[in-house]
């Protein structure tokens, strides 16, 4: 195997920087400079798909195969979702390669998903030669303008010498502040062009960009006063806790203040699901207690969450009685949907310890009892039948319940979008942070299979279970080919209700059961999997369920388990559209 004679860029250690006044430059092609930049940023895995306008980068990659693991996906959308899964499970920046034109436009869904879910990505697209820009050249598309509303930043490079600086900025912007996707479009001439490059300099400052606000202690103090006077405080936390790597700080705040805490689906797992102060999931299909009691608390403390409409329901009926404390790193989120009485603008890893310091240790026994009372109601009305059904047919809930028993909450659960997503998020046991990977804001069907592949690369030591419905599975089923070729170990748990279940539920409840195009046929998934040399099994009865789940988890490689579940099951509780969270229905 070819080994690169000098693969690493000159190290930028302080001693060498001091020793040599004039740093040594080296002549590289733009494509080589691109890969050196990735290595210098600590990238170990790239998801991508080659094509005409990115051939020079792939040519250079041939010499970097032992340092950069390139995962060949089956579609660029699969590539970007895999990079999202990688970023979400590892906390690092996900990297994608795609060619110009259709390669680049196939990234669009993933970029929109990553922006709304604040996922750090650097996407590198090839582009036609600079002299052909604007001529409708073969596979030319204006990807910069197409992706402007769905990237945190994007930039086109037309000269090789700009590449290191552009990539340094890209990584800095993607991972700092509120993270997000960045796209760098590199014309083919810039990839081919040779230039002299100085040692790579990471970016640490952009004068027009302030990712880390200076924390204003007076607001922290005001927040603490409110919290210390509260009788019925409630914490709502979101992904900001994970993105700020503030799980420890958050736990200390919750445990000292004694305040019950509820989560958005992207925040799930930052506090283990079994923690006594974790009172459950918020939103449209969240738990009964936290939804109802949002409208009865006196102080609402929102931490790293953005009051999405699926969490708040109708805003004019949302927590009107409460004083709101909002901790967020992004000032555009403060007062965007819900007016904050006290805004605490900053990185929650920084602000939470300041707040913990100032809050009194309390327990709120009566207030917490109310959550337990509502839990009991929800168990009786919904959960008992969902997790321990007495009917013949299997429910999605009991599959997740059985999975919990086998994984003991140690697995990473990647979900797609729809009914199975709500069931998995509601019932999955999560002992650790970065264990629930799902498409939250954009609701992208087809997310789970490629994201699970990426999640496994991001956290190779952990078991990754992709929970997918029969609709979403068929949207990115081609990524079974990626699993086949790489041998990546992903457990695919396919919950097949033979319907596009969430839309069917809405049609049943709000459109007089007019089931318009929700009856979706499936292939024989086990046969399809076998075609991709992935072991599979299908179960449709209770006695076979747990052995099959165990077989899936214990199988040495990837495994597809298709579980036939009851066709017309509805997800409850539910806050119907246009209703307040207090009007949540148990049936």
């Amino acid at each position, binding site marked *: 195997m070819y080994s690169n004679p000098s693969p690493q860029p000159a190290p930028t250690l302080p001693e060498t920087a001091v020793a040599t006044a004039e740093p040594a430059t080296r002549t590289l092609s733009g494509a080589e400079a691109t890969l050196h930049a990735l290595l210098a940023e600590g990238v170990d895995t790239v998801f991508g798909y080659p094509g005409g306008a990115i051939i020079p980068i792939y040519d250079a990659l041939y010499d970097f195969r032992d340092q950069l693991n390139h995962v060949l996906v089956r579609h660029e959308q699969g590539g970007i979702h895999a990079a999202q899964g990688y970023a979400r499970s590892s906390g690092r920046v996900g990297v994608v390669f795609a060619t110009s034109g259709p390669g680049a436009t196939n990234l669009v869904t993933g970029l929109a998903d990553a922006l709304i879910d604040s996922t750090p990505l650097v996407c590198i697209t090839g582009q036609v030669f600079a002299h052909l820009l604007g001529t409708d050249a073969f596979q030319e598309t204006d990807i910069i303008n197409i992706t402007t509303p769905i990237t945190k930043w994007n930039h086109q490079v037309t000269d090789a010498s700009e590449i290191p600086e552009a990539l340094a900025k890209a990584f800095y912007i993607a991972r700092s502040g509120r993270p997000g996707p960045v796209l760098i479009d590199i014309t083919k001439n810039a990839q081919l062009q040779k230039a002299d490059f100085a040692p790579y300099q990471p970016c640490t*400052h952009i*004068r*027009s960009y*302030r990712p*880390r606000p*200076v924390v204003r202690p007076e607001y922290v103090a005001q927040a603490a*006063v409110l919290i210390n006077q509260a009788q019925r405080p409630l914490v709502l936390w979101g992904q900001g806790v994970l993105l700020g790597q503030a799980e420890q700080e958050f736990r200390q705040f919750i445990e000292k203040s004694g305040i019950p805490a509820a989560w958005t689906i992207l925040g799930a797992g930052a506090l283990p699901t079994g923690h006594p102060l974790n009172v459950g999931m918020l939103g449209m299909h969240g738990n009964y207690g936290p939804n109802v009691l949002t409208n009865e608390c006196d102080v609402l403390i929102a931490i790293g969450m953005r009051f999405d409409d699926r969490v708040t329901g109708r805003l004019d009926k949302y927590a009107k009685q409460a004083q709101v404390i909002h901790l967020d790193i992004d000032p555009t989120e403060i007062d965007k949907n819900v007016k904050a009485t*006290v805004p605490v603008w900053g990185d929650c890893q920084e602000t939470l310890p300041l707040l913990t310091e100032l809050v009194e240790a309390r327990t709120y026994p009566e207030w917490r009892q109310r959550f337990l009372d509502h839990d009991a109601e929800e168990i009786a009305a919904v959960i008992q039948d969902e997790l321990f059904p007495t009917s013949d047919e299997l429910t999605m809930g009991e599959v997740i319940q059985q999975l919990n028993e086998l994984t003991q909450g140690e697995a990473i659960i990647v979900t797609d979008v729809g009914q199975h997503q709500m069931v998995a998020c509601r019932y999955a046991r999560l002992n650790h942070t970065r264990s629930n990977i799902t498409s939250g804001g954009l609701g992208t069907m087809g997310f789970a299979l490629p994201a699970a592949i990426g999640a496994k690369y991001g956290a190779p030591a952990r078991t990754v279970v992709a929970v997918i419905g029969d609709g979403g599975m068929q949207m990115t089923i081609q990524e079974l080919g990626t699993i086949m070729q790489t041998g990546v170990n992903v457990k695919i748990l396919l919950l097949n209700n033979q319907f596009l279940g969430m839309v069917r539920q809405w049609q049943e409840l709000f459109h007089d059961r007019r089931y318009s195009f929700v009856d979706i046929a499936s292939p024989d998934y086990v046969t399809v999997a076998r075609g991709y040399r992935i072991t599979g099994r299908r179960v449709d009865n209770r006695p076979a369920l747990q052995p099959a789940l165990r077989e899936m988890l214990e199988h040495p490689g990837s495994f597809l388990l298709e579980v036939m579940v009851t066709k017309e099951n509805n997800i409850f509780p539910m806050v119907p559209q246009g209703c307040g969270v207090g009007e949540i229905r148990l049936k």
Partner: protein
Amino acid sequence: MTQQSIDRREYNITAYTENQVGLLNRIAIIFSRRKINIESLNTSPSEVEGIHRFNIVVVETEEVVRKIARQIEKQVEVLKVYFNPNEDVIWQEMALYKVPTDIIAERALVERLLREHGARAVVIRKDYTVFETTGHREETDKLLAVLQPYGLIEFVRSARIAIIKDSQGFHHKLREFERTEPSPEVSENDYLNSRDKVFTM
């Protein structure tokens, strides 16, 4: 009329930015995504070399404009955004009027009207004369209406440019921005700064 339409008025948004290809689009789509019409848009250099200045006029409520301003400021290449109602700025628009020269020459009336409206001849040719006037919208509009009956050939008006009355300029701010360690001054947020009035215990 709803409360919201009563509260809508002209706001002048001033954005200090880097001079980058594509930034105009990044800013414009913040408005179009929310179906907000840009009444006027001007980009120009600022008092600081290398720093660009956008002047954008919209008719909206203060709440909407505040959210828009924050969204603009959130863009990586935008340094600072201010928004002001008309009374807080000094603003001007420039207009050009092309009029047949023979009418100007024949009718002393037209010449007097031009003088009364502070117009200035930019070009005088045998066939036409181009006048220029600068002022508020009502002033440039008034001259337009006056000239209309006298064979006005062509009319054009520029975007609005505005200077904020109590601004200290951007030199000092930029120095703060260029420091690697942010200071509270740069991290200021106009709304957060006024929170003392909002927050009471």
